[in-house]
């Protein structure tokens, strides 16, 4: 009966064996798994963060802040240029995403525009200019970024940020998180097993702009208390545990870019954790000069607009290296050294989305998923046996098992992420798999009833049900595709699992069932179907 092609049998056997081989690592304890010979697959299922515990952080580059920063720098360029060319101007300010200013003397207008054209906004992408300069009444001039040029800037900043984050994390020495770019201005970081992402966040999210600024010793404590800021100064909060805030000179004497190295060590006298650093030649020279000129005064070590330490200069430091005595723990000293070594983030970032699942909760979820999966499976098995009897029910159950081996095998092989909703997808696959079998069996019964012989009924059952099965399962694939396109994390996992499940289901329902039924037919030469 049923011209059973050899390739079908071989394919089914191959799928079963490979499915088993690739599923096997999941069933073995880690120790046995490591002892397997080299040719055996060792990958287990890749669990999503919701199952193994961990943190998923989605950052976005703060585009507004980046724009303001760039514009502020550009405004300074404008100021210098005009001063050099002796063009009088007023109201130079950055507002609403552009620079505004007013040229005082109408006759200097064209000179001003010429100067701007030469000095700012060099050619951006595609050779076009980076900025738009427009004029208004009363000699007003507005300077804004060309949107495309600024987008390209953002994109570059995101790449640089990823680079810096990667360097920081590499040096942290924790379990390696996945860092990936999302869309135009987002960065996604997935850290498995990290159930307290606060340290990770403090290392990743910190801009880490370091500067050395002189403390303004002429400003009195009363000025500070009343918030009076002398021109050219700024008030910065402090974390050094000595004073709540300082008035410092705005001018940054030396900055973090001039560092070549930073290490966390211990102070040789107090045994406190400190961060030692080393400048490059320019930094060393500047630092040497400034310390020589300001002996007895204090300078502030400023990190992201916060004073972390404000020591008194006791002697000129010309060697180009020094120590930061902050209010450190071993860990925070280490983190700061990491930040300084990896460099500052070119663009500030903020957290847009955070998902953290504790490892215990993840383990509970795995347990719940496994229990409901087993119960669902047992219920299905019992139901199929009750409906179709040992033989036909049994055949579809063997199909289910092969199907299961294939799904787990494929998912282990491809390292597709299994999420909690993905487990639901697996369980739903049970129903889909059973459906394919039911379609075939019912079709056989129909054909028998229509008066065909047993053999033709069985053959027609497969042939005709096949089209229906393909058509019907296509709909699952379509909806899985859409979920994959639009969903995030766990939903993607669900879609992926469902799609793999549907594909293996069609295979196992059509081929495995066919091979088993053909074997049964050859062995027993039945006269009637036990289900009709």
């Amino acid at each position, binding site marked *: 009966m049923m011209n059973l092609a050899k390739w079908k049998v071989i394919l089914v056997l191959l799928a079963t064996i490979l499915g088993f081989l690739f599923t096997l690592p999941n069933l073995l304890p880690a120790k046995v798994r490591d002892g397997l010979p080299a040719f055996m697959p060792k990958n287990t299922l890749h669990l999503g963060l*919701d199952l193994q515990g961990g943190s998923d952080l*989605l950052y976005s580059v703060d585009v507004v802040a980046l724009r303001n920063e760039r514009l502020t720098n550009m405004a300074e360029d404008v100021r210098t240029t005009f001063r050099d060319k002796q063009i009088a101007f007023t109201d130079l300010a950055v507002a609403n995403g552009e620079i505004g200013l007013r040229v005082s003397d109408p006759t200097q207008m064209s000179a001003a525009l010429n100067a701007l054209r030469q000095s700012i906004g060099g050619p951006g992408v595609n050779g076009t200019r980076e900025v738009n300069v427009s004029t208004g009444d009363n000699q007003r001039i507005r300077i804004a970024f060309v949107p495309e040029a600024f987008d390209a800037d953002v994109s570059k900043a995101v790449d640089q940020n990823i680079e810096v984050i990667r360097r920081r994390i590499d040096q942290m020495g924790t379990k390696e998180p996945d860092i990936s770019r999302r869309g135009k201005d987002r960065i996604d970081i997935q850290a498995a097993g990290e159930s307290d992402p*606060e340290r990770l966040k403090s290392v990743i999210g910190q801009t880490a702009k370091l500067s050395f600024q002189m403390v303004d010793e002429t400003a009195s404590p009363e000025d500070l208390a009343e918030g009076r800021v002398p021109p050219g100064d700024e008030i910065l909060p402090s974390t050094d545990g000595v004073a709540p805030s300082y008035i410092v000179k705005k001018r940054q004497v030396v900055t973090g870019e001039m560092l070549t190295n930073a290490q966390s060590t211990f102070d040789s006298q107090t045994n406190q954790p400190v961060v030692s650093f080393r400048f490059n030649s320019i930094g060393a020279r500047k630092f040497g000069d400034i310390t020589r000129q300001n002996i007895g005064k204090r300078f502030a070590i400023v990190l992201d607009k916060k004073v972390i330490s404000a020591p008194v200069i006791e002697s000129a430091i010309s060697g180009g290296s020094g120590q930061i005595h902050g209010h450190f723990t071993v860990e925070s000293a280490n983190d700061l050294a990491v930040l300084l070594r990896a460099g500052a983030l070119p663009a500030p970032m*903020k*957290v*847009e*989305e*955070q*998902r*953290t699942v*504790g490892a*215990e*909760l993840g383990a509970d*979820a795995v347990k*719940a*998923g496994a229990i*409901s999966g087993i119960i*669902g499976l047992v*219920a*299905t098995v019992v139901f*199929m*046996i*009750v*409906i*179709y009897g040992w033989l036909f029910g049994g055949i579809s159950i063997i199909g289910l098992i092969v199907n299961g081996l294939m799904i787990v095998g494929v998912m282990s092989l491809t390292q597709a992420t299994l999420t909690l*909703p993905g*487990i*639901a997808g697996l*369980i*739903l696959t*049970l*129903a*889909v798999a*059973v*459906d394919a079998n039911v*379609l075939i069996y*019912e079709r056989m019964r*129909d054909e028998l009833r229509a008066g065909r012989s047993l053999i033709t009924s069985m053959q027609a059952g497969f042939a005709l049900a096949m089209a*229906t099965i393909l*058509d*019907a399962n*296509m*709909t*699952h694939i*379509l*909806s899985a595709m*859409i*979920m994959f*396109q*639009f*969903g*995030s994390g*766990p*939903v993607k996992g*669900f*879609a992926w699992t*469902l799609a793999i499940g549907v594909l293996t289901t069609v295979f196992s329902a059509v081929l495995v069932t066919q091979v088993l039924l053909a074997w049964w037919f050859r062995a027993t030469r039945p006269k009637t179907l*036990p*289900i*009709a």
Partner: protein
Amino acid sequence: MKFWPLIKVLPVRTHFRFVRLSRLFATLSMVAIAISLFLTVYPFKLPCGGLACGIDFAGGTVLELSTAPKAIDTGQVRGALKGLGLGDVQVQPVGGPSSAMIRFQTPAGADISKTVAAVQAKLTQSLGTVKFTRADVVGAKVSGELLTSGLLGLGLAILLMLLYIWFRFELQFGLGAVAALFHDVFLTFGLIAIMGRLGKIEFDLPAVAAILTIIGYSMNDTVVVFDRMRENLRKYKRMPLGDVIDMSINEMLTRTIITSFTAVLALAALAVFGGPTLYGLSVIMLFGIVIGTYSSIYIAAPVILLWGVKRSDEEAEPLKPATQR
């Protein structure tokens, strides 16, 4: 008489007159859809209307914490958070006596990440040993995007199914299928709205995934019935369309019931034992499968009757022998 295997005992061929009842059921469905739509959108409040909006779409923070082995005092938790200016804070027990869930909106303009850190610090300070088992924070920008893309996904799924059925069958079938889909999706939204009002199911990403799955499943069911209908339309060319529809549904009835029952079994296990995360997902899918089965029979097929199908005898006739030319 043997009762096993059960398939031998089940009636071989049923002769229900489904089409005759379709008017009644269509009316019932319309009423149900109207109620569902009302519950879904009322009160007219963005972003989720009458659905209990999860943080995926509303933005905000959900923290789960455990003070095991000590029992948790939700009053104390509430008190600790009072001074932080978080606005409406919901605290409710989950899982066991030592676990609770806190949900709040990040105040406008505040850094979401810093807010969470502050809340956690405050709770640690006032509760002593506390473990944060889950912290989900979704910013306003992301939640807006998730909602848009979720709804877009739903719309696209329905459109894709229409195209697929149109391509594989014909337009009338596609319209019937899509009518059934809208029926299923609207009623499912009604269920989410009701369960949301009972505080059981939130409208979030997994809920959208569940609806998408239902779309796939309901379609699957519809395709199977349509497939048989197409076959019977070719086989019995002169049989009235209504009778062909009835016959096709009856022929597939055993299969429909067995399949749906298996799905219900599997999903019921998931709803009962799958834990809180999978509860919403599995209840929505359970409901969708029942509704999807109903709609393939009472919505999709009768809609075809309403529109009629092209049945040209000549076209389907076997080709005349070449000699006649």
